[in-house]
């Protein structure tokens, strides 16, 4: 596969050339000038970048939605049932849910803080969609490939707790408030071990871009081997960070209705629900990039296919954890975050530094 950017720049040049030729054909002076302006380098760059972003977002979102199907099916098998049966192998369940959610009425609670209520969910969803762009599929299929890509992803993640707290507060409801507080406390408690694990990877590879990290792993060794403690810590923290079942305190259907998103209806709720899976997809992608060698693999299938295979395998373990473990309490979650995962992450960082200093890598 050739580079997505090069392909789409060629396509955009052809497309804009066509538009310019059409405008020129009208024989109107200002339209011809406009057509010439369309063919200048900045406009071509802008349009092709936009196209790349849209194509990448839709592709990544589709695989994120596949996670919902995968979870329904696998969780069904774990519980000794068949899972969803709507359409071919249950593939149409997502479409049915999506159409249902889109057709619902948009309701804003009367006593809520209307503007913040609307803003919070958009901030949350926007940060989720921005995160899609941070994870490349391969060194040819990506949106951004900057030197600080890992840091960029982490920085966008930081918007999550903020928008959740605002959303929980502005709904003006006990359940959403408690859910928002729990979510933010949990995200912060688990974010620090997560960041320390990322730091250990960065220490060893000496690179903050995903392409650099994956290239290093291709040349040397998959980092799950030397940093197995870090990989385990990262995995547990990632399950918590995506608010999935053993760590589902922020939602806690039995106690808190729907957590911080209780008051959201219609497509906002649907996208919030889907964004749990999108975030799980992003964290699986991060795990793949940092510890499983990203798109590295024998070349009989595409690099992108290797990446996606690994992501789906990591998510299988997410589902397994969900099916096999029991929920934990608030105090336990904080204890786990600060007393277990944090020391493990620090030990992992020490191992990484020791490996780097002694010159093993």
């Amino acid at each position: 596969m050739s580079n997505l950017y090069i392909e789409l720049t060629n396509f955009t040049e052809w497309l804009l050339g066509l538009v310019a030729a059409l405008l020129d054909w009208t024989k109107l002076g200002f339209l011809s000038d406009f057509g010439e302006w369309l063919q200048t380098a900045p406009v071509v760059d802008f349009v092709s970048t936009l196209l790349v972003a849209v194509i990448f977002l839709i592709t990544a979102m589709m695989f994120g939605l596949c996670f919902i199907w995968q979870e329904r099916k696998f969780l069904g098998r774990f519980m000794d049932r068949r899972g969803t049966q709507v359409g071919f192998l249950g593939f149409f369940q997502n479409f049915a849910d999506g159409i249902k959610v889109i057709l619902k009425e948009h309701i804003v609670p009367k006593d809520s803080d209307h503007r913040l209520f609307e803003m919070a969910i958009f901030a949350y969803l926007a940060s989720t969609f921005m995160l899609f762009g941070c994870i490349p599929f391969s060194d040819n299929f990506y949106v951004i490939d900057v030197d600080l890509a890992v840091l960029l992803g982490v920085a966008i993640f930081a918007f999550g707790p903020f928008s959740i707290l605002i959303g929980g507060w502005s709904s003006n409801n006990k359940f959403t408030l408690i859910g928002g507080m729990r979510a933010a406390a949990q995200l912060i408690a688990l974010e620090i071990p997560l960041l320390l694990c990322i730091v250990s990877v960065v220490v060893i590879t000496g690179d903050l871009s995903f392409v650099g990290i994956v290239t290093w792993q291709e040349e040397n060794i998959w980092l799950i081997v030397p940093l197995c403690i870090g990989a385990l810590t990262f995995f547990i923290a990632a399950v918590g960070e995506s608010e999935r079942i053993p760590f589902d305190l922020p939602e806690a259907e039995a106690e808190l209705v729907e957590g911080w998103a209780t008051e959201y209806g219609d497509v906002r709720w649907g996208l919030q629900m889907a964004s749990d899976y999108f975030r799980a997809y992003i964290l699986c992608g991060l795990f793949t990039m940092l510890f499983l060698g990203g798109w590295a693999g024998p070349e009989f299938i595409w690099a992108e296919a290797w990446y996606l295979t690994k992501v789906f395998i990591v998510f299988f373990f997410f589902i397994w954890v969900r099916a096999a473990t029991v929920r934990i309490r608030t105090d336990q979650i904080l204890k786990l975050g600060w007393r277990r995962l944090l020391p493990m992450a620090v030990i992992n960082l020490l191992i990484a530094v020791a490996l780097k200093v002694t010159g093993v890598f």
Partner: protein
Amino acid sequence: MILDGTTLFFLIFGALTVGCAAMVIISKDIMRSVVWLAATFVGVGILYIFLNSEYLFLIQILVYVGAINVLILFGIMLTKRRMVGGDACQEYEEDIIKRRRSK
């Protein structure tokens, strides 16, 4: 005066940052102040991009929006307050009555 693209965008984002900073003080609701404060931090971060220091921008977002703002929000939520448009917290009212009596 001729404005090139960089200067124009610098002025726009600078003005937005100053505006957001003013709104922190102007807005009546403390929660909205925090949101405006977050916008100010992001604005300052964007100004760092114009200084060609992307690393500082990302750290600014990570530390200020991700940590400091959440800390402030926790501080606000853990103190007693009135629900928006609803009744005042009962204990809070009782406190006020006690204070009045003691005076």
